[in-house]
């Protein structure tokens, strides 16, 4: 695979060509839409709907399984849905199925802590995630769906000299790539987050922070639903509760997938799963350098808004933000052993509470409402695995570790381009699977929010 052309204008060997409809062909299956579908969301439509008292139409429809599709995407999370959406909207490829064994956004896409940022460490990573931030900024308008993106600023705290050095490094790489990131001192932090204990009386005094103003939080369910609705309007079939049980390969080439609802013939199958990425890849015999770890999160009861930035501390292994509803959302490091279990642990909540109180002692009376866990596919270098694989027609968009949700839009856009053109876009070229065998790792652990 080392001779894979990269943005060179020569189609990659791993992607069979598919016919892209000419622009004259109607991309949305308007023949099977009722008069009221799809709804256009606006203040006016809300008003008139309120007057008429009618139900809103469903955001996406239920379909029978077709015997064949041009592209089958496994996993109806933000990556799978975004890939389907950009295939339809950017390239007019609509004979696409998105399969999920559960429901839309039921995996990592609905379990993350909804933080979006681009303050990474490697130039490849910064460029990639910055494109994602740009897409997120216009997503509500593109999808006609309020995704509630709030660019409230993102602070990564440094409690020792070595992390301050890494922050400085990240800030310089970011500036070089045109991303707004700078290192600020304790006084500036106190101004941004008045409730934080920035004194030097603490166990781990705060020396400074990497401040990233474009970072913020978003409503992750709305992103999933918005992409699902956008793809559905354009004719993509979303099949929930349809589990892939096998993938058919003939002579090193994908021919279709076996599901719990029957077989589907397809020349291109995209693995957009998180947590099950190795299990799906094993079906075609492609070994992925991935270890699956659970990552837990928790949310408190809602209180009046007092926290106007996302706060991350790698030393204390915690990150926190406040939703528009007033709940504090916490995350921490991944569980210390590999597992597919999504059970929460008391140990996690205890450690989390201890650490967050070192940062903000005044919230000691707040109560945790619930906790949950999602699955993170950790790669050796903390960068994703995207693009072609040794099996022709089997494409990967996996190995996202703890960065998957942030990268949803740009991954969808890049994977759609790869499928439509057969060429690996420059922006994902360094994330190929072959890098592990060839020793070209893209070390991104230094930009992890907390230690893993």
């Amino acid at each position, binding site marked *: 695979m080392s001779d894979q052309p990269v943005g060179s204008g020569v189609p990659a060997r791993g992607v069979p060509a598919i016919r892209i409809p000419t622009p004259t062909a109607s991309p949305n299956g308007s023949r099977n839409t009722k008069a009221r579908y799809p709804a256009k969301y606006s203040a006016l439509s809300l008003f008139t709907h309120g007057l008429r008292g009618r139900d809103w139409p469903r955001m996406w429809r239920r379909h029978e399984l077709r015997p064949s599709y041009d592209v089958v995407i496994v996993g109806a999370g933000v990556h799978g849905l975004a890939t389907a959406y950009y295939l339809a909207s950017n390239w007019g490829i609509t004979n696409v199925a998105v399969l999920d064994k559960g429901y839309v956004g039921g995996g990592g896409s609905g379990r993350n802590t909804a933080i979006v940022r681009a303050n990474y460490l490697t130039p490849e990573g910064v460029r990639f995630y910055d494109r994602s931030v740009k897409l997120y900024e216009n997503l509500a308008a593109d999808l006609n769906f309020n995704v509630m993106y709030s660019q409230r600023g993102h602070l990564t705290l440094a409690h020792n000299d070595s992390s301050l050095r890494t922050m400085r490094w990240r800030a310089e790489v970011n500036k070089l790539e045109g991303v707004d990131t700078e290192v600020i001192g304790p006084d500036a932090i106190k101004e941004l987050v008045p409730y934080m204990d920035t004194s030097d009386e603490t166990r781990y005094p705060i020396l400074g922070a990497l401040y990233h103003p474009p970072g913020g939080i978003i409503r992750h369910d709305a992103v999933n639903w918005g992409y699902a609705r956008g793809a559905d309007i354009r004719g993509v079939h979303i099949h929930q509760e349809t589990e892939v049980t096998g993938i058919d390969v003939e002579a090193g080439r994908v021919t279709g997938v076996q599901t719990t609802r029957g077989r589907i013939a397809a020349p291109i199958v995209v693995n957009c799963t998180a947590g*099950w990425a*190795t*299990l799906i890849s094993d079906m075609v015999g492609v*070994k*992925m*350098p*991935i*270890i*699956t770890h659970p990552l837990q999160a928790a949310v408190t009861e809602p209180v009046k808004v007092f926290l106007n930035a996302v706060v991350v501390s790698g030393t204390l292994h915690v990150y926190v933000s406040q939703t528009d509803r007033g709940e504090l959302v916490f995350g921490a490091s991944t569980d*210390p*052993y*590999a*597992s*597919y*279990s999504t*059970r929460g*642990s*008391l*140990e996690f909540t205890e450690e989390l509470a201890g650490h967050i109180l070192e940062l903000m002692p005044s919230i000691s009376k707040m109560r945790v409402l619930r906790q949950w866990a999602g699955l993170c596919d950790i790669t*050796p270098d903390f960068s994703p695995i995207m693009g072609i694989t040794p099996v022709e027609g089997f494409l990967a968009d996996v190995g996202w570790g703890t960065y998957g949700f942030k990268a949803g839009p740009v991954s969808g856009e890049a994977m759609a381009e790869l499928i439509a053109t057969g060429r690996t876009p420059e922006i994902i070229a360094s994330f190929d699977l072959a890098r*592990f*065998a*060839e*020793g070209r790792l893209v070390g991104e652990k230094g930009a992890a929010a907390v230690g893993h």
Partner: protein
Amino acid sequence: MIQVSCPWCGPRNSSEFRYVGESKGRPDPNAATPEEWRRYLYVKSNPADWATETWYHRAGCRRFFAVERHTVSNEIRETRRPAAQLRLEGGAP
């Protein structure tokens, strides 16, 4: 939170241990090609099933041992001293 039974110390909280990873054979460093060595370093089987792993009793006897754990339920069906230890004691090949 799961309980791990150390072959030397008995059942303890998993927080006392460090999960080292899946047990797998190491290729001969002198004979392996860089590709084989990288495959050994990076590629794991990552099963959703029973797995044989190495754990280290960090806050205890500080010894390594083998664990058979189901990665979906986290149930542990066996812990045993590592093969190298058994060889030293003459109890196993």
